[in-house]
């Protein structure tokens, strides 16, 4: 989790936030002067804060899909373990697929949500290169998906709801991953998720990369954070394959409809979770609070449903996906 800063604004800034940089620096200087006690700057700081807010609002209200991709992938963006720590109590991480390995790119565990036991899982990216190497940048191997399946079955056996946090560039395309059945692991999860007899809510918190995202994202309800993305392939991947030019990623990002707003319109997701001004990383606590409310709101109508109804609900949800001429 990014360390809370003393100034109101988190230091790491995105490329397109550069217009804010000057204002941030100015504000810091004023604050320093204020602190020395030499001059009274309260009014100036207040003015500047307002300017910062207005400027940021301007920037973030009109983000292009490419800019949203940058926010979604931002290294300072809260990750799954950050959110778990802020949303749940008594989290205990459960390791291993009882088969081959524990996959640190996909974390699972049991926890308590407002007095209710739940099973949680999610891809976990790092906040630094070191962390990212340890977490394989949130790209799970088959073991990760199999661990997720194992804890989903645990949830099912003891009738606990499942919450998944989705944040991955995709399933890891490595030699070992292929060798140990990446396709099989994801495929089996899809079928088994469809048959789960417990309420299941999925949240795309950052990057919802293709099959690797879907592999834990077949909730009864699927939500997206305001600045998250969800797509069948990365914009640059799409550009290099279809446009035959990786440089045309911006164009692809637009064409592919990968933003929360687009996917809500397409009926692929059920709701959008608002992010704090300037993105989730600017106020992780508020962000977590918004997610928590959203989970509670979505879980509530699912809790009274019977096993059969829950399966039917999920089946109908995904059954409807598809647009074609008949």
């Amino acid at each position, binding site marked *: 989790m990014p360390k809370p800063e003393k100034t109101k604004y988190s230091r790491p800034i995105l490329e397109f936030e550069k217009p804010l940089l000057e204002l941030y620096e100015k504000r810091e200087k004023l604050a320093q002067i204020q602190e020395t006690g030499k001059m009274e700057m309260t009014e100036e700081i207040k003015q500047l804060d307002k300017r910062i807010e207005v400027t940021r609002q301007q920037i973030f209200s009109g983000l292009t899909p490419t800019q949203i991709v940058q926010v979604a992938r931002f290294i300072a963006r809260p990750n799954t373990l950050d959110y778990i720590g802020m949303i749940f109590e008594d989290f205990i991480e459960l390791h291993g697929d009882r088969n081959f390995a524990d996959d640190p790119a996909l974390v699972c565990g049991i926890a308590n949500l407002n007095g209710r036991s739940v099973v949680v899982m999610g891809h976990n990216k790092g906040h630094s290169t070191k962390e990212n190497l340890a977490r394989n940048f949130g790209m799970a191997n088959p073991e990760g998906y199999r661990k997720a399946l194992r804890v989903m079955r645990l949830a099912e056996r003891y009738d606990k709801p499942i919450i998944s946090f989705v944040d991955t560039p995709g*399933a*890891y*395309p*490595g*030699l070992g*991953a*292929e*060798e*140990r*059945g*990446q*396709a*099989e692991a*994801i*495929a*089996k999860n*899809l*079928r*088994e998720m*469809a*048959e789960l007899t417990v309420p299941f809510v999925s949240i795309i918190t950052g990057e919802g990369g*293709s*099959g690797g995202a*879907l592999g834990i994202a*077949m909730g009864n309800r699927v939500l997206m954070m305001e600045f998250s993305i*969800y*797509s*069948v*392939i990365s914009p640059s991947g*799409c550009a290099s*394959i*279809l*446009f*035959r030019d990786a440089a045309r990623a911006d164009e692809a990002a637009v*064409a*592919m*409809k*990968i933003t929360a707003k687009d*996917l809500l319109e*397409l009926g*692929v997701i059920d709701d959008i979770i608002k992010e704090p001004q300037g993105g989730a990383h600017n106020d992780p606590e508020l962000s977590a609070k918004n997610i928590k409310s959203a989970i509670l709101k979505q879980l509530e109508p699912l809790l009274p449903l019977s096993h059969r109804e829950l399966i039917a609900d*999920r*089946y109908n949800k*995904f*059954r409807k*996906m*598809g*647009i*074609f*001429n*008949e």
Partner: protein
Amino acid sequence: MSIHDWFKRKKLQKEAEYTRERLDIPGNLWIKCYKCNQTIYNKDLEANLKVCPKCGYHFKLGSAERVRQVSDNGSFKEIDQHLTSKDFLNFTDTKSYAGRIKDSILKTGLNDAIITGTAKIGTYDVALGIMDFSFMGGSMGSVVGEKFTRLVELAVEKKIPVIVFSTSGGARMQESIMSLMQMAKTSAALGRLRENGLPYISVMTDPTSGGVSASFAMLGDINIAEPAALVAFAGPRVIEQTIRQKLPPGFQRSEYLLEHGMLDIVCERQKLKDTLTKILRFFKD
């Protein structure tokens, strides 16, 4: 079909024939084996189920040919053939998706990358789906997902097993997220089939990769593949980019997958119908 379309179709079909095997000798009387370079009299190749008599190389099969090879004579009854893809995102890369769909239909005579229906195999009733690589590389969009799902739902209704032959380059990217959702939809349908106690046999043919392998292709009660078929989640090129080294020979081919536990059977085309019949008998008796 307008006369304009008819001409276009002829032209495209010719292109297709050329690109599909790339080795056809004009007139189509003779064909060169892609693997061993043997020149084979086309009729002999057909008689040998399009398997090279010299080296055993399995040529790609169109869906119509596959139907003839595996189902009892004339028993196949197609369903949902009228479904066609829609360019609902107005997606244009080097060409508009709408245009691609139209051209592919003209070129292949197919409406999309899978045909589905009921058939008999060794006298057993089955719900049969067969993908066709010639239609946009067997990519899975809404139509493939929908037809697959309807096939499974029909099987549940009729209480018959499902057999699907896969071949696919992956997701239909022009349908973006909707192509990803087909993985969820088809896998959910197989979950329902399973809950209903009905078997599903998956036959993977060269190549089966991406979204199709990571959904219905891998989910057979029995997973079969033709010899030397490429079966992968991420394709060899992607993996080579990731690991920055050459892949070992045979990597991601059926025999490799068998060794690594992902397949029940690698089955030559000549034995395929017999094997399917025995398996159907197992489930029925």
